[in-house]
């Protein structure tokens, strides 16, 4: 059975803030983890509440985002949505890592000084 993954976007990066994001990437993958559909949605305005509604409406099972307020995080978790938050990096890279099962909450994917 496939599932839907939502990545909040800021340009080509994971949006640093869930509540200020005005674009999302919706990716549907099949049971084997292969991407079957990709959709870019531009939102009318940024709103964490509206985004939560969209997550539930589109039956998204995983949200990959940057900073998210505790209230919205727990709401989505309560609705049994997996939330991988605090991700800083390019959206494509974050998605690829997730599909490989290697994306952790708080992951910083940008090159860092003093890190290999």
């Amino acid at each position: 059975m496939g599932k839907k993954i939502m990545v909040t976007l800021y340009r080509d990066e994971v949006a640093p803030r869930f509540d200020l994001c005005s674009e999302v990437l919706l990716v549907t993958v099949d049971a084997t983890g292969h991407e079957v559909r990709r959709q870019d949605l531009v939102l009318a305005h940024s709103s964490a509440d509206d985004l939560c509604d969209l997550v539930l409406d589109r039956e998204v099972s995983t949200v990959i985002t940057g900073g998210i307020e505790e209230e919205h995080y727990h709401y989505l978790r309560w609705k049994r949505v997996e939330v991988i938050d605090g991700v800083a990096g390019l959206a494509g890279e974050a998605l690829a890592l997730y599909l490989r099962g290697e994306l952790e909450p708080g992951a910083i994917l940008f090159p860092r000084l003093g890190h290999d």
Partner: protein
Amino acid sequence: MDQSTLVNLSGLDRADLPRILSALPFGVAVLDAERRTLFLNRALESLTGFSTADVAGVFCRHVLRGSFCLHGCPCLPQGGDCAQGACSESREGTLINRHRRKIPVRLTSLPILDRAGNFLCTLDVLEDLSALKDMETRLSVSASPGQMVGRCAVMEHLLRILPAVAQSDSPVLLTGESGTGKDLLAEALHRASPRARESFVRVNATPMPEALLDAELFGQAEGPGGVPRPGKFQLAQNGTLYLSEIADMPLTQQARLLRLLDEKAVLPAGGDRPMQLNVRVVAATGRDPEEMIQAGLLREDLFHRLNAVRLHLPPLRERGEDVGFLLAHYLKIFAAKFRKQVLGFSGEAQALLSAYDFPGNVRELRNMVEYAVMVCAGDMVLPEHLPLPLRFPQACAPRDAAVTPAAQNKPSGAPKPARKKA
């Protein structure tokens, strides 16, 4: 003294900047020309939850996660203007830290240039505004006519015009029965006025010897020990003086009040030099002012002075749907105060409350709800939780009649208690 001498003398060229920045009580981020993070001081590490080692080299928008980062970054939209030192500016917003907490902050972005004007780095200074915002919220709650609530047309109109009335310095006359909220309205007027930071002095001209009242209100030129003693009017200098029942004020003092309104000056008792005062006067009465003039209790000229702005608070029985609204409003307040899970009124309790005409107005309604919530053990207020006069008006009527002479004129068997003349 030129700049290089200053630097040499102060030793700034040899200063250990990271250590200095870390000792500062507000957050500082050092960023490169592309706004990648180079350094976070200790305060900012604590605010964001990130350490410098975690985020060195990461774009600041992923570290600060500020509302100003995505929409109107202080530097990025203006392109390379930072290098010319053109984009030093402050803005307020919020950040979401690593612990998912949204924090109000003020960001000041300062480009650092060398002596030749070449760009070195940017300092982002972040101040945590949580405490200020909390205080602002508390002050705005207490400054707003918050305690004055109402949804009926008359109250809505009153609350709508209140800010405009508050802004003027004209005297205000408040009328309305006892318990309708004249005192609250007077305070709300003061708090919404430009005088809000000054004193709000309430004067209750209770019966007392005239000379004493004179000294109490207008002060004494020579008090005990030869020191001038300020009266209520002097204490209200630059603020608001509230006369809670103008009809209680003797006619002599009314004449002096008239002089204050006319000349903005008072003459302290025993003095010969008038004292200039800047006081806004708000007066209230529970009686009909026109009737008081006819009865000789209120000077007509003073009435016309005070009547520049007249605000009338309607009795609760004329406020229609407000009874239900106020019941719910006070139920919520007292349930929280007594830490009880009282959710509402049962149908019977609601019917009893709706049939009652609340002669004591909002004050009586509030006291009834307080009592009901206090004695209620479940989640609904039942008739047995309501005060006796409300449940058995007829049984209580004779006792009421004994203490309220006006009640004796009430037709026998009338379901509602007599209205107390305020």
